[in-house]
């Protein structure tokens, strides 16, 4: 019943957003581009519309609910990249178009959205899905559509499920996995002398993946998780986590790694600090550092306590503020020029976007890699070719200091994670944590 309701709901929300700049368009496609620029194009079948030189990608993400910040920011980054690409003649002449559906970070709508994308809209590929439980639910569907060569590109999740058998041929990941992120965090914490590590995680596949990553990384040092506590997906910032804080602090940990969403992790940090715990608390990239800090800064003003101290954020992209990185410079420029707004039909809840964020930077990089893949098959883009082009991508320099490489048995382009702390009103990359920090 709920599946049916979700389907009906989701199909009503389908929108195609065709965004392109009004200038710098080659004369061959300028007529088409100008006609379609900055307007909503309602769907018609055919993913690769040869007559229009347009490729449509389906994105199902959270545009409502507590996790909507991620969907919004990832979409903004992707669209900034698409807009930039389309404004410069498209990817090998092909305009990149994004079709959006809201799943509210709920697996069932994600499932029905995907069926809609594949069977009704016949999109070229699925792109930029947000969240582990949602993406994990879609995986069997990708196997089902194997004969149609349907692939999921660059989902915003580090779930290892997407990087292993049997689903790895259907997914291309750009970012480091949660195992990579948690290993980096555990190594940094152990190097700083923190050996008793507790885990606060979401009670689902995402949280368990992070918990497992911490467990494996600790095991390599002959250690185990000091204590763990879970929370239900969908937690909001106002939720009371004092019980969970008490359960973890009872094990006298040296540090806590949280595997959750921004509101849940922020609420946990608030309650832990209110309980007098000054220990380091770490979060994964999915916790959306920018939005998490927004919650805590608002709390700072309420209680005059510094909630952002002693936090360590794992990120899978470098700092977008780094002037040495060409991709960061291009991202800032694209974001400044982008006129990206979510279609009104999907803006059911208020959201104030971040002008720049780690999440939108990651979306931007995903858009850049996709554009390069399309360029490499610009003469005749097909789904089957898309997979082989990506698999053949080796050491692609996207301007972040790390090279993107795919290949058989390797469906993850980047492996590096970055340690970030919040200091003096901004994020700073750190190589390691000082001994005895914070």
């Amino acid at each position: 019943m709920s599946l049916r309701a979700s389907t009906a709901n989701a199909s009503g929300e389908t929108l195609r957003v065709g965004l392109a700049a009004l200038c710098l368009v080659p004369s061959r496609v300028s007529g088409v581009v100008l006609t379609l620029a900055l307007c909503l194009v309602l769907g018609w079948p055919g993913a690769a519309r040869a007559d229009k030189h347009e490729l449509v990608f389906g994105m199902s993400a959270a545009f409502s609910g507590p996790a909507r910040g991620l969907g919004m920011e990832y979409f903004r980054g992707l669209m900034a990249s698409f807009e930039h690409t389309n404004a410069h003649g498209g990817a090998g002449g092909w305009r990149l178009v994004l079709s959006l559906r809201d799943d509210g970070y709920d697996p069932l709508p994600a499932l029905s959205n995907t069926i809609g994308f594949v069977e009704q809209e016949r999109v070229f590929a699925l792109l930029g899905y947000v969240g582990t439980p949602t993406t994990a639910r879609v995986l069997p569907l990708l196997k089902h559509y194997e004969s149609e060569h349907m692939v999921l590109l660059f989902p915003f999740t580090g779930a290892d499920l997407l990087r292993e058998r049997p689903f790895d041929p259907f997914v291309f990941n750009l970012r480091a996995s949660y195992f990579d992120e948690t290993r980096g965090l555990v190594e940094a914490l152990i190097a700083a002398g923190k050996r008793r590590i507790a885990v606060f995680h979401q009670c689902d596949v995402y949280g368990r993946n992070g918990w497992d990553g911490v467990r494996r990384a600790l095991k390599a040092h002959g250690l185990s998780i000091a204590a763990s506590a879970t929370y239900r997906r969908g937690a909001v910032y106002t939720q009371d986590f004092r019980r969970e804080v008490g359960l973890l602090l009872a094990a006298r940990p040296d540090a806590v790694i949280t595997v959750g969403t921004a509101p849940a992790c922020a609420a946990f940090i608030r309650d832990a600090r209110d309980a007098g715990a000054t220990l380091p608390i770490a979060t994964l990239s999915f916790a959306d550092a920018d939005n998490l800090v927004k919650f805590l800064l608002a709390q700072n003003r309420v209680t005059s306590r510094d909630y952002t101290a002693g936090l360590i954020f794992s990120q899978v992209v470098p700092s977008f503020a780094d002037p040495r990185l060409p991709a960061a410079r291009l991202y800032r420029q694209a974001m400044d020029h982008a006129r990206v707004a979510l279609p009104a039909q999907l803006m059911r809840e208020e959201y104030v976007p971040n002008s720049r964020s780690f999440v939108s930077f990651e979306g931007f990089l995903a858009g850049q890699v996709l554009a390069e893949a399309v360029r490499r098959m610009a003469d005749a883009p097909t789904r089957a070719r898309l997979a082989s082009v990506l698999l053949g991508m080796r050491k692609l320099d996207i301007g972040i200091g790390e090279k993107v490489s795919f290949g058989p048995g390797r469906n993850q382009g980047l492996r590096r994670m970055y340690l970030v702390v919040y200091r003096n009103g901004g994020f700073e990359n750190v190589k390691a944590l000082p001994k005895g920090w914070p």
Partner: protein
Amino acid sequence: MRRHGLFLRLLVFMIAAFGVMAAATSLLSGRELNNSMVREYEGRAVALARSIADGNTEILLSRNAGAIQAAIDLHQEMGGLSYILVVDPQGEVVAHTFTPVVPEEVMAIVREAPGKAHFGAGHDTRTLLLAPDTEVIHVAQPILGVFLAFVAMAFFFIRGITGPLRELSAYAQRVAKHDFSATCEVRSKDEIGSLAEAMRSMAGQVSGHVNQLEQSVSEATSGLQDAWARSRPLSATSPTACWWWTRPGSSCGTTRPCSGCSAWKART
């Protein structure tokens, strides 16, 4: 209060009897239902645990806790299911659906079978009896309704018995005070009806006997008067022989006409 003593005693007794029966029925059927549900849930939980274990060999071999969690999350929405828990052969819980932690009683079950991979699915039986929307409450609600209906029926039934009894009692009291004009309208074909009939006939007989007695007394009295009159000459016009003996309005019993005994009594 005493007038309603029997009514109240009967009503209290019947409510108590019905209450005990309703409570016993509720408890027994609740316990039976609970047992059968526990059996059914146990069967379901075992089947579910087996199906997850058998259907995900590939995932189990990968030993990726996230993938195992994904497999159990699919079943989380199953109705009545309380939790799913997966334990590896080292006794470590690798995936579960509890928040915030695995309860100690479940961990105790896990510790009972060391050295074995353990797939558990369970239901919180406490909720079967206590939660407001559980099956037991669904069974107890109609029983409570039937009990209340019985109480209402008992009220009217007992009133149907004690009402005529009260009327008969009032009738008997009036007859005892020689009020033979009292009537009793209790008529039915049961024991109370025959009691009423017997009382009516008894009152009629008593009334007849009294009248007969009065007649005999009156005759004896007039005999005595005659004898007395013969022994003392009386003026024929003097009605002093008129003897008021019973009560105002009754016949004076003289053999001669008189103008009114009450007046005579007043004069004498």
